[in-house]
């Protein structure tokens, strides 16, 4: 039997990710620095660990997606990868008054592009999924 991605395993994996990132957070707290120092090479390794684990989870989950749904899957992952909106918001709305205007404008355009992807991505995924019905008309 193929192992499946049960909700329990999902949660376990997510907590593994959270733990992987905990040391980095803790070290950030301890030094009180706003951003980790260049000297903390370990911090980067923990981020690479997170990346690796997330890729494995992604591959595991995607391989189980029915081929029927590959088009909606792509529009859903489009919307999810528009998480770049987080970075865009931080750049566009940054508190520091020294932020140059050009930087803010670039950030704002990025917010616009990401939000467009989020809105259209989730909406079209749902619209397409509603179309998949069985004989009796049930979704």
């Amino acid at each position: 039997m193929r192992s499946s991605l049960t909700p329990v395993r999902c949660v376990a994996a997510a907590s593994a990710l959270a733990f992987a990132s905990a040391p980095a957070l803790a070290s950030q707290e301890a030094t009180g620095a706003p951003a980790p120092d260049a000297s903390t090479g370990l911090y980067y390794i923990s981020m690479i660990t997170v990346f690796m684990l997330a890729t494995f989870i992604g591959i595991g989950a995607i391989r189980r997606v029915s081929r029927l749904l590959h088009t909606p899957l792509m529009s859903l992952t489009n919307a999810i990868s528009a998480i770049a909106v987080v970075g865009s918001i931080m750049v566009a709305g940054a508190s520091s008054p020294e932020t140059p205007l050009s930087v803010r404008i670039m950030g704002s355009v990025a917010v616009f592009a990401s939000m467009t992807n989020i809105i259209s991505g989730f909406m079209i995924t749902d619209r397409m999924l509603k179309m998949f019905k069985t004989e009796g008309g049930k979704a």
Partner: protein
Amino acid sequence: MNTTLLLASVLDDFRSSNALKYIVELAYVLAMALFIFSLHWMSDPKTARKGVFAGVWGMTAAILATWAGGNVTQHLWVLAPVLLSIFPGMKLANVPITAVPQRTAVSHAFGGLAAGLVGTAEFFRWFLDANLHHEMTPFRVSALLVEIVLGYLTFTGSVIAAGKLQEVKWIPQRPWVYPGQNLVNGIAAIGAIVLAVMIVMNPTAPMAPYYFGGVIVLSLIFGPMLVLPIGGADMPTVIAILNSYAGLSAVAMGFVLDNKLLIIAGALDGSSGLILAIIMCKAMNRSFGNVLFGAFGQVQAKAAGGEQKQYKPDTPENAAAIMEQASLVVIVPGYGLAVAQAQHKVRELYDQLKKKGVSVKFAIHPVAGRMPGHMNVLLAEAEIPYTDLVEMDEINPDMPQCDVCLVLGANDVVNPCARHDKASPIYGMPIIDADKAKAVFAVKRSKNPGFAGIDNELYFLDKTYMLFGDAKAVVGELVKNLAPSSSMH
């Protein structure tokens, strides 16, 4: 008024303490879990819509946490683009289903653009402020360069891909190739790498922004250079690869901004694109490198000049009469179905045949259409039950029992050349065994070879009859001949 004051003071307290920071990080963890659930629920059409809701909530949590997290105070700069994005977002969500491949390419372009711009903005924010120079560690600057290269090349590449899919006039439909193409691309790539290394070695040098500009320009040029040489039949793979790039650029952004949520969500998208690209490549028996650098379709000129073979044309009346007698009809849809917008007519055909007790299945090749899963969505739109949409590997064993195989706008995916003709560009590609059916009707727009420009042996078999014409019109004729009213006279 008192309550607002109270609320303000509570909020102030929150800001000064670390509590808010924890809430933000916890919201990010929640978002990560929701995104993973979102993909998990996509495994089955029954739970898939739950997946969308999980995704929406995850995204909402991430956005609110970032916005309210204390580092964002210039709200107008965020609010304005958010409001502006509502209209185009809704517009792009409501395109006709036949235009979904283009929409997907456009959204990859937006994703790439966002990553590129954020990377550029970060670089200049650090560069222009001497107090921030310590932020430019070699690791971060390298991640930033990866981010902008992937971002900008995904941007321009996807714009070209969208143009190709939309069949706009200024982008050539046939692969655009010239001698020494790979050499030119290689030199440009080396140039970009050299510039990138110079930036990483000394990111605060006065010349660094110029090098940075050079990398941006080269990346913007790379996109079209990657996509223009690729033929229409390879579009599903290219779209999947661009999807992967858009995700990976978000990962790189996560490394730059020290944000694990970006890394995880980006990695989920990156691995999704990668897996889809691998599935597409396997379905064509080709490697990544071959798709990207092989310029498929170059062979077409030679193939078309072969000896003249004779098609056997037939009429929809005859075809309908034969289909009526069948017990199993397998329909093989292809891109031609999408072009002709024939899905609703196909549904009528499906209904008529079902009414007469004929069982009807659709054989879906993984690369049929212009993006992964394209045919499934198109037929689902016409309310054909998804239980009758059968994957290639599942339908092939049943093909010898199939009485009539109706090929609707598909071509290469049913070409038996793929099995034995080593000279054929599609040799080795797994195909739907249409030729094993007892009779084949192929609907074709014209007598020219298909998109890949390869002659299809299937059309010249003794049991194959051609129905020339637009897919929608031909299926319409079939429906008319099957309908009870026509059998009355």
